[in-house]
């Protein structure tokens, strides 16, 4: 007898508040990583193209190290280290150590990827702009801040956003440390109710809706810039 699977979606409506909470964690990790990643990534990019050799070398080592190791290992590493560091700073187990570890891991990991995008963006600004800024009497820092970075960020906005979409998907890997983000919550609810099949498909659908819409927006931006 060949019977097909009987779907039962009834456990999803009741679990929506829990899933919503999980989604908030997912957004929290994503947004923190975008903000910290871009700021720290910009500093890394500037360090890498700076005239100072040791600074450039240190930044390059950081970026290459993070880009060579799987994200799963990075998350596991941070889950090992961050609780110890938190403890030595605050003395008490005050924070949610999983969330704290995930936030640090993603922020520092994404910075490595963002810094490569930003470096390329900075290098795409014509040299003449720099010379012109210097001729106008701007200092190096002013040139960076007022002339180069604004143009660079405009050029690389689509790439930065695409990276953000990848990041949003990658946050699901906090599963390896048991943090209840959107995916972790969906898995737990599915496990609890014995309806893993439905919950996994549902999670996939939600991720698809978010990422597909976001990527359509990015595409529209790209087209507008291309004109």
């Amino acid at each position, binding site marked *: 007898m060949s019977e097909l699977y009987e779907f039962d979606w009834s456990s999803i409506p009741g679990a929506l508040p829990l899933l919503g909470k999980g989604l908030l964690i997912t957004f929290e990790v994503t947004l923190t990583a975008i903000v910290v990643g871009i700021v720290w990534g910009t500093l890394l990019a500037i360090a890498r193209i700076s005239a100072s050799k040791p600074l450039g070398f240190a930044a390059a080592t950081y970026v290459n190290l993070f880009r060579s190791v*799987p994200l799963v290992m990075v998350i596991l590493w941070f889950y090992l280290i961050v609780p110890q560091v938190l403890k030595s700073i605050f003395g008490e187990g005050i924070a949610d150590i999983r969330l704290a570890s995930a936030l640090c891991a993603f922020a520092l990991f994404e910075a490595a990827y963002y810094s490569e995008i930003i470096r390329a963006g900075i290098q795409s600004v014509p040299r003449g702009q720099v010379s012109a800024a210097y001729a106008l009497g701007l200092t190096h820092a002013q040139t960076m801040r007022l002339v180069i970075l604004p143009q660079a960020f405009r050029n690389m906005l689509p790439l930065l956003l695409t990276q953000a979409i990848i990041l949003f998907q990658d946050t699901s890997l906090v599963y*390896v440390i048991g943090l209840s983000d959107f995916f972790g919550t969906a898995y737990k609810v599915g496990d609890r109710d014995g309806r893993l*099949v439905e919950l996994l*498909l549902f999670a996939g659908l939600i991720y698809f809706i978010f990422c597909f819409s976001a990527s359509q927006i990015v595409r529209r931006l790209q087209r507008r810039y291309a004109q």
Partner: protein
Amino acid sequence: MAYNWNWSIFLSDTPAGDATYLGWLFTGLQWTVTLSLSAWLIALSVGSLFGVLRTVPNRGLALLGTTYVEIFRNVPLLVQLFIWYFVLPELLPRELGDAFKQLNPLLQQFLAAMVCLGLFTGARVSEQVRSGINSLPRGQKNAALALGLTLPQAYRYVMLPMAFRIIIPPLTSEFLNIFKNSAVATTIGLIELSRQAQQLVDYTAQPYEAFIAVTVMYLLINVTVMFLMRRVEVNARVPGYIGGSR
């Protein structure tokens, strides 16, 4: 709390008595490499096929290609893996699903991870292939057709050989990614490198040694792949293109 380093832990036997802990790590390394390479074969073939489909003058085929890419690029790899491993066997007709689930568990995990990783990366490869083909001057295709080649022949003998040589750098980075992404297979229990790292932590309570050893192994994989791909790149350079002839 002072940490007690103990690097000799790798030489001691595991409680199961089947190997040393170092032996476990090498088993993990083998699985990581085998998984990545076999998934890469799938990614290259599927990616090329769909990349080509998206450039042919047929709306149905192009739509098929686009659908594949959009689905596989917009769902997280972890979710895709769980769907392959946990969901699909349940959705298959009962006998087929059961037959799969009676296989050796390692084989099940390996197959699910290989197909998942292969199709996931394939979607990215197909984007590169498409942009490689689109970057070729239109004249190449027209010239090939004018010479009497059929469309498949034009792809086979003129456009694809050029396109592939142009997209080797982005393909290299996808190839590196597949090794890193293979670590996701840890979540379904495949004993690849990062799973072995966690297992060592469970068994020895020496997390730093285990993590450092595994991280170094990933770095070595990275360096090796980059070295090999650099040679491929040099050999495949197209004269007249940026980074082409000296």
